[in-house]
């Protein structure tokens, strides 16, 4: 939102309280100063320019902004940026690698788990969080866990199938 390092908004009209933060984002160390009221979504999107994390409801309802903090999916629109100090953040840009897609991403591609794709990064990050905690979730677990991620294009069946297949893939790899 345009907070400069001296603790003013760009216009210089307000002084805001700042915190020093050191964290890893997608495995890369990042340190900087963040305003205490700045949410992680803005830090990621506006300052670090990781735009894969999406902004939608901005009220912790839809899941579009989901990222992992220490392996836990959180709504970055409602998570204060300074709280990532000393923790590690993974966004959609940190899933998979140049060498290849993550099994979840592969499954989303295979099953057309995305239409407009706007909810997709959030869906994948939530699903990541689920598989980290429960590598072979039941269908009921998938439904419960994923019900915080809204897909207005209505890809739910394909998303559920993708998560199931990715969980099988992770089991196979052992």
């Amino acid at each position: 939102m345009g907070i400069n390092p001296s603790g003013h908004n760009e216009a210089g009209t307000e002084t805001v309280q700042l915190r020093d933060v050191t964290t890893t984002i997608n495995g890369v160390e990042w340190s900087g100063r963040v305003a205490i009221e700045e949410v992680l979504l803005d830090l990621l999107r506006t300052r670090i320019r990781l735009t894969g994390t999406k902004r939608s409801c901005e009220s912790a309802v839809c899941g579009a902004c989901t990222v992992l903090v220490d392996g836990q999916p959180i709504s970055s629109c409602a998570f204060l940026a300074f709280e990532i100090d000393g923790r590690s953040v993974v966004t959609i840009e940190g899933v998979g690698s140049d060498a290849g897609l993550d099994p979840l991403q592969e499954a989303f591609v295979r099953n057309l788990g995305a239409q407009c794709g706007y909810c997709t990064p959030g869906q994948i990050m939530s699903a990541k969080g689920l598989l980290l905690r429960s590598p072979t979730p039941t269908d009921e677990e998938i439904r419960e866990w994923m019900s915080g991620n809204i897909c207005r294009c209505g890809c739910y069946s394909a998303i559920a199938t993708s998560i199931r297949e990715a969980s099988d893939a992770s089991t196979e790899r052992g």
Partner: protein
Amino acid sequence: MTTPVDAIPPASERPEPWSGERADTLAKVTGKAKYLDDLDPPDGTLHAAALRSPYSHARIVSIDSSKAEAYPGVRGVFHRDRLDGLDAHLPIVEHHLGLKPWEKAKGLTGEQHLIAVDKVRFHGDIVAMVAADDLRTARAAAGMIEVDYEVLSPLFSFSDAIAPGAPILHEDLGTNVAFEDSLEWGDLEAGFEMAETIVEGEFSAGNVYHHPMEPATSCLVRYGESSIDVWTSVSKAFSIEPHVAALFGVAPEQVRVQIPDIGGGFGAKQLAPSMLIALALSRQTGRPVRYLVTNEEGFRSNSRHAMVYRGRMGIDGLGQIVALDVDLEVDTGAYYTGATIATHNACISAWGCYKIPAFRVRARAAFTNKVPAGPFRATGKTQTTFAVESLIDVAARRVGIDPTEFRRRNVIQRGEYITDTWRVRGEEFSAKTTPPMDSDFEELIERAVDAIGWDGVSATQPRFDADTTVARGRGLALSFRHGSQGGGRTYAMVTVDRDGKVRVLHNAPDLGTGVYNMLRIVAAETLGLPVDAVEVAFPDTSNRLSFEGTSAQRTTVQMGRATQDACENLKRELAIAAFQVFGGAAEDWTLVDGRVSRNGVSYSLGEVVSGFQGHVTLKALGSYSYAPSEDKAFGGLDHWAPGAAAAEVEVDLETGEIRILRYGAVADAGKAIHGPSTHAQVLGGAVLGIGISLFEDLIYADGQLLTSDAIQYRLPTMRDIPPHFVSSLVENEDGPGPFGSKGMSQTSIPCVAPAVANAVADAIGVRLTDTPFTPEKVLRATGRLGS
């Protein structure tokens, strides 16, 4: 000179184009897809924020923006007293500047204007906009603008709006009636005389919001002397330039609209006043301006029309429908944004898919102080299909015929016309310029009931008695939608460069349905190339390739055909090029399996283009026009786009909750150009249908819109998906689109509410007549909750 040799694997080794991976998915699963909010804005871009009306209806007494103007970091302010000489009354109506003659004749007023002048007419009307160095400052400054309002009493329903003495929203109009429409054929009186049974019913559908996950609708704009740039996410790329031209007195060609990835639309992503105000701020400040809407602002951008349908149906002794008389009340919200389109679409679907000798619909649309209503997936038809498909069940049960059998007896058969002639607003037209029925409802019914493992036979006795706690029932619904209607002339261009890549240029925005992937397959198949040899560009109006827009199920047929045509023309270009480069005669060169061939010698596309000295890009244009028609009911129309669905539900009589256990949706796709995308459209439409049938509702009270964020407004989640949820496609390859395809993206949404209502009636013998079917309404209908 490098000679890229694009070795093409034999067809057997190529990925199956009809069902292979979709071109756009990789970017979407890796976070690389760029939506509007993700674009890097040009240097010096300002951020805009809007001040919106907190009242649904008020007179603006004064606006004082001095504090905002003095606030450090603020660069521009725009409101009725800071207009920079621009016309605040510029009508912002998508169809206004291209009004059809009958709309013009009506002398419509009540359009949404550039910005509020004397009054605000809905909770969220834009009063002022501010541009500042950063978003925080812009929002703070917008909040400093002091507006003195004289609050007026708001109108929140059609009946309030037309009641004698109701306050008039648009004083110059003198009435709250926005539009009147009618369509009729046959002799209604004689029809009802023939009837042995007459049933009546009243069905209401409330206001809902499309809620694309990318809020509707942000923009990034730059007002320059030589060119005016707009980046935004609308479904109609050319809808913006006439308004910009009219506002600033520039040539439409000076306006360049570019459209990145779009995060869903469903009708909501339309031209908005904020885009023009942002441009005015860019002109005022000399800087690019970015306006990012919040989701709550999205709730104030657009909505579905609320409608009340009153139907009276006559059935003869043989179980044939002989007459149907319909009265429609349409609530169009604060402005004339979609009044004619939605009202007319409702009229031309009010009889469902049945052959009825005498029919009449009379419709009135009225202004209310609600968020302006506009196009919504299957515009006008989610409301009428709910009504007519419910009424059909009521009629069938009344005459003692099973509802499925009753439908079979009355549906329009393949080859039949709706009727011979009809009167549209009193004017007579042939009904035979619309195509005869080109689909088999019999087959659709069969597949729908099969899909949920049902024989299609409904219960004859209500399964609801005093001891029942949970009851199950099944219901069927059919939808009748026209495909590929209207639009001007559609153009596409294909090019081939030295790298052998074929590029498709066009202006058909992809809102998530897979338009670009569809065009890629059409081009690849037409040219005999693998799909990855084709790239499809994002819309950019600077190429001047006209297209009405991605709506009304027209894109597959119209843009698909234009692309196919362009590829056919490209074959000729390639032959001429091969002749120039390699000799022989142009007629001897043909495209075989993606290679330009003559007498057993063949070259790849890249080799042909690279054979030229200097830089050459081969180009070919393709076009498509729908069949012209004088008819004012449907206008030009290429095909019908019917659908069917069957639902099995469980009704909890203690809580009033409805659970859909099994749901099957069927669409006549003609030919699914990309199977997975087509199925995804059918299922996705049904998911949206579940939301608007069971819980989505824009509630107004105390002068405000109450359910205007994702917390208050309940959207369907994965938990709401029926345990058994399937789609099925009819593919007879008999449509007018490429390879026999038809438009189909809106066929599934209208069926959900009536299929569920019919299933509920089957379960408990109680008829739900008002969407959404909330537990409270179910309990009231069953008498377990007093009114």
